[in-house]
């Protein structure tokens, strides 16, 4: 039982998860950004671990990754920055990152560190389910960390069932055929996919992400899932911000309303 499970026990709808890139726009913005996200009323914080070659991300998140790396961000640095985060941040925290930096850090050392600083779950988009089951699931369980898999409109029903069986936290529903930040708005076709998955009565909560940017898309997505994830739109808000705390709060509040 970690903070993600507790959250979804108490909140079945309109859960808002905010993705941001660690060390962006400035290296030391990581913790203040997290604090502002919590104060603004979001429910989950997704910390993006920057990577040189993010193949599932569009230009907005690619740029934030590049800038964060130029700023000197790394996993080691991130764990230093968030080592005392649980003194000021109480909502669930999830790390999202590509596999290579984590493998170089060492998967077990990484999971141990996640547990130590109070991270609740992981989203590793290029870790395939089979590999997870064969190599890492036991370790994830040992450290009490949730693993979140993605599904997309192309994912078959049987594969969704398998993913549901092997998830324990939430399922990340990618809203369309796309990388991050590619589209905004929600089409009829997407809604029929949302409904199809909704009708499967999965055991895990579902958060809908990619293309969610404002109150309208958040509300629509929340009708068909337990909430939604905002990434690129949030990165755009912080990118040029002169007052990070105020801008984060007014943006998130405008989404939640």
């Amino acid at each position: 039982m970690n903070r993600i499970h507790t959250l979804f026990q108490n909140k079945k709808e309109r859960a808002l998860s905010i993705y941001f890139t660690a060390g962006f726009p400035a290296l030391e913005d990581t913790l203040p950004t997290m604090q502002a996200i919590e104060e603004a009323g979001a429910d989950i914080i997704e910390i993006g671990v920057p990577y040189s070659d993010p193949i599932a991300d569009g230009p907005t998140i690619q740029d934030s990754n590049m800038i964060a790396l130029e700023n000197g961000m790394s996993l080691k640095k991130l764990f230093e920055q968030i080592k005392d985060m649980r003194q000021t941040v109480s909502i669930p925290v999830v790390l999202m990152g590509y596999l290579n930096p984590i493998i170089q850090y060492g998967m077990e050392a990484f999971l141990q560190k996640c547990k130590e600083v109070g991270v609740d779950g992981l989203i590793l988009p290029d870790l395939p389910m089979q590999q997870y089951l064969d190599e890492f699931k036991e370790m994830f369980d040992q450290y009490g960390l949730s693993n979140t898999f993605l599904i997309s409109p192309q994912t078959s029903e049987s594969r969704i069932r398998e993913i549901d069986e092997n998830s324990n936290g939430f399922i990340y529903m990618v809203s369309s055929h796309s990388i991050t930040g590619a589209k905004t708005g929600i089409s009829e076709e997407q809604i029929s996919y949302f409904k199809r998955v909704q009708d499967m009565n999965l055991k895990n909560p579902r958060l809908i992400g990619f293309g969610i940017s404002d109150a309208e898309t958040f509300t629509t997505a929340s009708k068909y899932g337990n909430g939604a994830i905002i990434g690129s739109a949030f990165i755009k808000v912080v990118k040029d911000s002169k007052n990070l705390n105020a801008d984060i709060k007014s943006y998130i509040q405008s989404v939640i309303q």
Partner: protein
Amino acid sequence: MIKVDEKGFYGKFGGAYIPEMLHPNIEELRDNYEQIVATSEFQEEFQSLLRDFVGRPTPLYFAKRMSEKYGAKIYFKREDLCHTGAHKVNNTVGQIILAKKLGKKRIIAETGAGQHGVATATVCALMGMDCTIYMGALDIQRQRPNVERMKILGAKVVPATSGSQTLKDATNEAMRQWINNPVDTHYIIGSVVGPHPYPEMVARFQSVISEEIKKQLLEKEGTENPDIVIACVGGGSNAAGAFYHYYNVPEVRLIAAEAAGLGISSGKSAATTALGTSGILHGSKTLLMQTEDGQVIEPHSISAGLDYPGIGPVHAHLFDIGRGEFVAVEDEDAMKAGIELSRMEGIIPAIETAHAIHALNMITYKKDDIIVINLSGRGDKDLDTYIKWGGY
């Protein structure tokens, strides 16, 4: 035995580390390609296109003057004589037939030197398929003739502007666009890289190179097996093709020439086995040039086709178990080797290929050893680089 296992690994390297969004595409390919390729219908179309369109078999040419100079029997496998000017077309012919059988309507591809882009644009024109090529912005500058060829052939060329703006970034962009268009689009990867089953599939389409070498050498020397095979390695497709039928013939030495750029320790290099460690790039576990933190290092090579921070998983495995010998050739030495080949044998090679020629100076061999060098491509595309370098 050098053989891919059912999960797509060659020893420690390979696999399919892909975002879930690509899972259906990779699964479709994995579940269907072997069966499709094995049908007589596929084989007839593939073989007839290789013969009548590509111009196979390519000659195995005895290089008399260079043999005298180096004191060995040097043969060139003339992939530079393939239609479009390099080995790349062997793979694109195979993959375009496969894409059609899978019912795909659109093709995307990455390219470095532009040879794979041209070979892809060519087969798309042949089959009447829509074609988009992703190419690093730097490579668009240094391989201009190939960019124009792709356009003449009707392909759209889209610059990749992230990172070092070379092959790695073009590959990232092609993968992203595949995620964006997963249903009607096939991604023709141009080397033995990417998630399983690509590395083995591309190697099989290229294996015609060593299949022909065996037959041709038997005719010329009375043996199928040379003492040494040399090929350059970017991702490693021409090398995989030239090595394929010799993987499990231990008496044949396999030499892979990678690009040392300005020198292995210069910080401007693409010498993957010399500098790389195990990691994940473009969907497979392999050797790659990376920082301690697991960030991929921007490579450098004067040749766009070798300017890549990784290497196909099969080559990582050959290196790991000591089956392959790897040498790293510097820019300057490769350019000089290109001139040497031009002057001694009347063949202006691609700069990628010139790396394999220079490898002759870096390995040991016995007098009268039979050495086959895979001439992966011709130098037409590289005239600008030769001219800029100017040392001739």
